[in-house]
């Protein structure tokens, strides 16, 4: 962390609030995200909280390959997040479409869809089908180190 990092950046690292968007994945990654909140992994130790509204969030966890119906809601939810904001693509579908590549019903991947409305958006990719909770936690921690 550079010495010039403001107290707000430090605070952001200490309390990243997460909003979870499922963009028509198979629900497997969503279950692994829910696992992070269980006593075994307990992400609240790092100040990470799952919030109910994108307005309260700093980090967006995205799962799934973005179907046509999810496209605009995903872009809207991203624009609803106050700056500074970052995204985490969880699972192989959200990283590179996985098994859905070239399917007629999907328009993803999510990072591309979001960069259409916000070209400067930052992302971290967590491959796996599904990724383990440890991997998701490590991704969020690494992401915060990059801020």
């Amino acid at each position, binding site marked *: 962390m550079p010495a010039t990092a403001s107290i*707000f950046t430090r*605070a*952001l690292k200490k309390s990243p609030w997460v909003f979870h968007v499922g963009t028509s994945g198979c629900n497997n990654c969503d279950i692994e995200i829910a696992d992070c909140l269980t006593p075994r992994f*307990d992400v609240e*130790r790092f*100040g990470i909280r799952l919030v109910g*509204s994108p*307005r*309260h969030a700093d980090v967006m966890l995205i799962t799934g390959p973005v179907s046509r119906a999810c496209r605009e809601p995903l872009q809207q939810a991203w624009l609803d997040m106050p*700056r500074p904001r970052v995204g985490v693509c969880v699972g192989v579908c959200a990283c590179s479409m996985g098994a859905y590549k070239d399917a007629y019903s999907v328009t993803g991947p999510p990072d591309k869809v979001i960069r259409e409305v916000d070209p400067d958006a930052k992302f971290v990719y967590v491959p796996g089908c599904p990724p383990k909770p440890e991997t998701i936690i490590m991704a969020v921690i690494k992401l915060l180190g990059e801020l």
Partner: protein
Amino acid sequence: MGDFAAWVFLFLVFPGIVFSTLLGLTLSWVDRKVTALVQMRRGPPASQPFWDVVKLLGKEVVVPEQSWAAGFITLPFVAFSAAALAGTLVWLALIGSPVTTVGDLIVVLYLLAIPSLAVILGGTASGNPLGAVGASRDMKLLMAYELPFVIALLVAVFQKRPVGAAEASATTLSLQGLLAFQDAAGSIISRPSGVLAFLVALLCAHAKLGFVPFDLAEAETEIGEGAVIEYSGAALGFLKLTHALLLSTLPALLVLVFWGGMGEGAGGVAGFIGKVLLIVVLFVLIKNTNPRVRIDQALRFFWGPATVVALLALILAQLGW
């Protein structure tokens, strides 16, 4: 000028805004830590609530296009100032400050209702349909718990009891007066009517704080945080600070009205801290062992059993129990 500086210190630093906010943030850490322990987790570090608020103060404040911008932005600060003023009045009475205020129990009750009203107005000003749903639930909840809350507090005001040969009663609405009565005649909660009234007031304070099972105004799983859904950045930070202030003010008020405050007979400062912690832990345990109720169930509970018990306590108090 010396007097003026002393007042500013009393209202802004100790026991006013700075002190009660810091205390409230610490108590909100106690809330999260005990919740974590109940769920067999480790929970956040003690500095967590402070970092949360600092982070929110540093974030962008988004004002939704369809909102009434002026009201949307100012209302969190209205909520914060009302809660801070209520906290200051309660603490001034508790520490027995020589500065007397005209604010009595009724003023504190009004000030404690303003944060809820500000959140209701802010939720409707946001122009978000889910915010409107949350605001309407909050409004019904406010009407539900205020009635038994006021009756339960009146029990302390009207409790009669024999002292020596004569019969004594506080019969005063001033906070200092209530403390003086309890110093002379023993705490309100030492009598059956006081116990009943305290339990009712505890549940009403629980609903005022918006904790489960009465968190239906902020139900994040169904209406995405309800009335505060559109708030972000510093505005949301001030709403969190308001909640922290209420979390320190309400237990302090309950201890003041029912449990003898910091009086020598009531265990002094150490006893006071223990009582406040006990009340907060009780809140957290109730919160963690009950599922959310529907709005009709909440209304039926507060206007039914809670009001009946509060009225019964008032009658018992008049009969000298």
